[in-house]
């Protein structure tokens, strides 16, 4: 069935008016079951032994003393995850297995080397101390530039840049994006700004540590309960790593206590599975916060060189970027996404962006909200504001003059369809926040941001119950209220009250494959599939009415929750409501359902513009955020308050990254701040209210015009905060986070430059 693209639909009854969410009461009463909240009879507790070194060869592991400790039921090491052909054919999965349990070498502080299952956590902890690992410590590297330098310690002897060449290297991939004559573009420029920026590695910082409960039965079939952004991914990865048939493993997604991209891969699940298989008992494995910081994905850290030029009347003529991203111990730093997104808000005639994906002795980076984009945008938006200041133009006007528009060529190549950047810039400029007078040591910063948004594999099943209410099964974990949006879209299509739809996250045994909840895809893709599943159900409902009335199926249509004759020639019949049809489903052909399976594409990019007012304490370098405004294009906001929440949450994560969050390593390559005390995410008293304005430029790729909203909001804040600090102090932060010691030093080294 072709999608009924109707982005101009305005007369929504449910969509856009969602108030409360179906999982809400359980979450405010403590009943909701998260990853660590599941218990099984006879359950064992597992703990993981982790490397105390940044880089070391494992000469031997002796687990005999641990195994002899009373209460210890099993110990596993890399030897318990043997090779199998399916696994070896998949390079990414081989790396995931290596990340899950070190083999041969440990590659970072916190890399898992062994795990224990015991009768209680205390015994498991004791057992870890009895495992003897003989390490040969190797030179390490944690800095991206040092890792790229000749003579750097090499992590993987077999790694070659883009798979080519003879020399071992830490540069896994390079990428180039661009078009136009870059040299000619710079020749046309009247002003050129060229600067290098760095951004530290930020952690996703979800409050719920990774947790799972695995249970393998004597017949080799298994179950996992875990907090994840994608339980189908967990099933497939675990099955392949543990050499199981996919159908023998069933994974249930618990409620998830935040992910932001950090739960789009696996860390502990295969370990619990292997321990359960070895012991024949359920095994629960919960990470400590220390483990979360040391051994799960932070984002890449970056070193970015930007050169941009513009004419004196404000036209950007050339834009050039070099992005060095380190993504930890395995390839995958999103420098390609950085290169593609860097200039995506603008339309320079000539653009060139080069990206490097570099491995270092740090935990493997995991996706984090618009992966790769925020650090690139930080650098570009800093330079854009500096150019605007140089030619004496208002920073929003300068952006408007160069803004990407519908029909313009994107910096990453393709031509944009309907996009809403200009609308966000105009709304930001007109917002009262943009004209509030500033006091001494205060500055206002502007920045825009872009994210692609994605679709992906999606399966949805909708069942009409005996009373006419609807049970909707989706396969994408609800990370921030998506069940409410699904209920709303199903109710909208069926013409029934929101309260009559219940949405569950089905386990992997109950529904077709679904990609992880990522790329801001759920409201778009699961929503799209939900709408189509509802339409399929309506077809069945209409067919039943046709049977009952004894008229052709195409003589029945669906309106306001009822089947009605399609026209005067169809005959005179009173409407049959969903409730009436559901009640006689058994006698009219069996249960009534609608399904939809799709590889959804066409998510439609999203843009945002942020304005921040900041005050700097010139004597201490401390920055206070006074005011913050987000203007973002949501296409169509299904649940406006949740859209606002996504925007606010993303912005505050960006503020944290800009001000204080970073991974701090000592000279041994060990992480110095693996806890919330010194990995400083914003607390309530650090912030003002976060003002929001939703712009709706419908996405032509979605029946209701919906765009993803989850990720774009973390893209502008780094640049916006840096621009506000530059405006307040006259010095430009080039190193994030711009923590107080850094800013104080910066103000001393470069006192009050003119900008």
């Amino acid at each position: 069935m072709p999608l009924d693209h109707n982005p101009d639909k305005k007369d929504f009854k449910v969509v856009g008016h969602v108030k409360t969410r179906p999982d809400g009461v359980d979450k405010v009463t403590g009943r909701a079951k998260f990853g660590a909240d599941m218990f099984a009879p006879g359950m064992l507790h597992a703990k993981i032994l982790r490397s105390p070194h940044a880089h070391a060869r494992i000469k031997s592991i002796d687990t005999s003393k641990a195994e002899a400790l009373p209460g210890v039921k099993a110990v596993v090491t890399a030897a318990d995850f043997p090779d199998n052909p399916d696994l070896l054919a998949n390079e990414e999965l081989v790396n995931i297995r290596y990340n899950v349990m070190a083999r041969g070498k440990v590659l970072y502080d916190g890399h898992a080397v062994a795990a224990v299952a015991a009768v209680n956590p205390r015994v498991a902890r004791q057992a870890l101390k009895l495992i003897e690992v003989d390490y040969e410590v190797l030179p390490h590297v944690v800095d991206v530039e040092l890792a790229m330098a000749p003579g750097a310690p090499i992590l993987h002897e077999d790694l070659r840049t883009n798979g080519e060449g003879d020399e071992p290297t830490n540069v896994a991939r390079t990428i180039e994006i661009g078009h136009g004559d870059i040299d000619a573009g710079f020749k046309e420029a009247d002003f050129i700004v060229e600067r290098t920026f760095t951004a530290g590695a930020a952690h996703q910082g979800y409050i719920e540590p990774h947790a799972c409960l695995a249970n393998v039965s004597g017949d080799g079939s298994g179950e996992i309960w875990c907090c994840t952004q994608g339980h189908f991914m967990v099933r497939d990865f675990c099955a392949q790593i543990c050499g199981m048939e996919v159908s023998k493993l069933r994974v249930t997604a618990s409620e998830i206590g935040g992910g932001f991209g950090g739960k789009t891969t696996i860390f502990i699940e295969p370990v619990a599975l292997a321990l359960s298989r070895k012991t024949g008992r359920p095994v629960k494995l919960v990470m400590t916060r220390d483990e979360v910081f040391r051994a799960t994905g932070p984002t890449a850290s970056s070193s970015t060189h930007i050169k941009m030029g513009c004419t004196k009347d404000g036209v950007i003529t050339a834009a050039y970027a070099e992005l060095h991203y380190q993504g930890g111990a395995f390839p995958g730093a999103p420098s390609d996404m950085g290169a593609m997104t860097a200039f995506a808000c603008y339309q320079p005639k000539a653009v060139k962006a080069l990206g490097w994906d570099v491995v270092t002795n740090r935990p493997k980076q995991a996706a984090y909200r618009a992966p790769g984009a925020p650090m690139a945008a930080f650098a570009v938006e800093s330079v854009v504001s500096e150019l605007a200041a140089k030619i004496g133009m208002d920073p929003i006007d300068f952006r408007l003059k160069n803004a990407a528009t519908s029909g313009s060529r994107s910096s990453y190549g393709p031509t944009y369809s309907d996009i809403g950047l200009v609308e966000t810039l105009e709304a930001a400029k007109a917002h009262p926040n943009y004209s509030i007078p500033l006091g001494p040591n205060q500055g206002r910063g502007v920045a825009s941001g872009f994210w692609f948004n994605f679709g992906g594999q999606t399966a949805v099943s909708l069942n009409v119950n005996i009373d006419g209410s609807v049970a909707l099964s989706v396969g994408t974990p609800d990370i921030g209220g998506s069940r409410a949006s699904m209920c709303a879209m199903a109710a909208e299509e069926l013409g029934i009250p929101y309260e009559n739809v219940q949405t569950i996250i089905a386990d992997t045994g109950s529904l077709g494959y679904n990609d992880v909840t990522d790329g801001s895809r759920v409201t778009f893709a699961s929503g799209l599939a939900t709408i189509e599943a509802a339409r399929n159900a309506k077809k069945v409902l209409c067919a039943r009415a046709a049977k009952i009335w004894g008229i052709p199926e195409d003589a029945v249509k669906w309106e306001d929750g009822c089947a009605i004759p399609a026209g005067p020639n169809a005959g005179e019949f009173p409407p049959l409501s969903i409730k009436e049809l559901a009640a006689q489903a058994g006698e009219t052909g069996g249960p009534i359902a609608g399904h939809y399976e799709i590889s959804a594409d066409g998510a439609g990019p999203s843009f945002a513009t942020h304005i921040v007012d900041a005050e700097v304490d010139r004597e201490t370098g401390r920055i206070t955020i006074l005011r913050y405004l987000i203007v973002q294009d949501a296409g169509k906001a299904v649940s406006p308050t949740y859209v606002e929440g996504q925007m606010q949450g993303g912005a505050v994560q960006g503020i944290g990254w800009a001000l204080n969050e970073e991974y701090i390593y000592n000279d041994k390559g060990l992480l110095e701040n693996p806890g919330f005390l010194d990995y400083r995410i914003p607390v309530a008293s650090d912030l003002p209210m976060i003002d929001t304005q939703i712009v709706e430029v419908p996405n032509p790729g979605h029946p209701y015009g919906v765009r993803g909203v989850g990720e774009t909001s973390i893209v502008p804040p780094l640049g916006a905060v840096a621009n506000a600090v530059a405006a307040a102090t006259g010095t430009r932060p080039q190193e994030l986070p711009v923590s107080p010691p850094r800013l104080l030093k910066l103000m001393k080294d470069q006192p009050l430059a003119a900008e």
Partner: protein
Amino acid sequence: MRFESPATVAEAVTLLNEATGTVYPMAGGTDLLVRLRSGFVEPDLIVDLKRIDALHMIVQEADGLRVGAAVPSAELNEHADALAGWPGVCEATGLIGSTQVQGRCTMVGNLCNASPAADSVPALVAAGAIARVVGPNGTRDVPVEEIPTAPGRTSLKKGEIIESVLLPTKPAHSGEAYLRFIPRTEMDIAVVGVGISLTLDDSGICTDARVGLGAVAATVLLVEDAAKALIGTKVDDAALDALAAACSAAASPINDKRGTIEFRVEIAGTLARRAAKIALARAQQN
């Protein structure tokens, strides 16, 4: 591990003195339990002091206010006499951790934890507080600055606990204040902490001052040069400059995840100047 909750100080002292292995007294437990959970300490015995009624007292004595070892910060910050007489100590104690931690943590625990960055200690040092130590050999009174001897180490002997702290009554026209620097607004460990107490005569000349400096050396410092910079002045700009210089000079910090040497040295002076202004304003009102 054994856990005991004695009902009297004497029982606590006996337990601590007679135990073998690693033994910790516990007041609020907000540091000890973190170290216990991380495996950093493996005690054989923890002696909980919170069931000892005598340690929960806040008592006005002839020469000052006596605060028991088990009084949590939140309770101290609800005590009218404490707030009125020792605003700097209350401020400092009220900055330890979150609201949740405030309900548990104690000034004495903070002192015995012997962290150079402990918030309440510079304020206690500035206030001239006296710790009452009880042990198998009786009771002794010790100036608080003599309790910590190195990070995590104290001058207490086996079996000894601090039973209470005396906050000495101040003369008229006295004021005190505590300021710390942290990157966020809450939930951080002090990068620098400064406690200042000063007394003025009727003409507004500073006759006495004490300056405690935290997180800039292995232990909290009592900076006599900083006090001298204020005494005999009207705490004017010149005096404040001299105070800041003395505090910066006294600072011998390290580079760590929380701050650089350069930053801490400078901020020690900056905060001292700011704290002195607050203390001065309070003294002028008293």
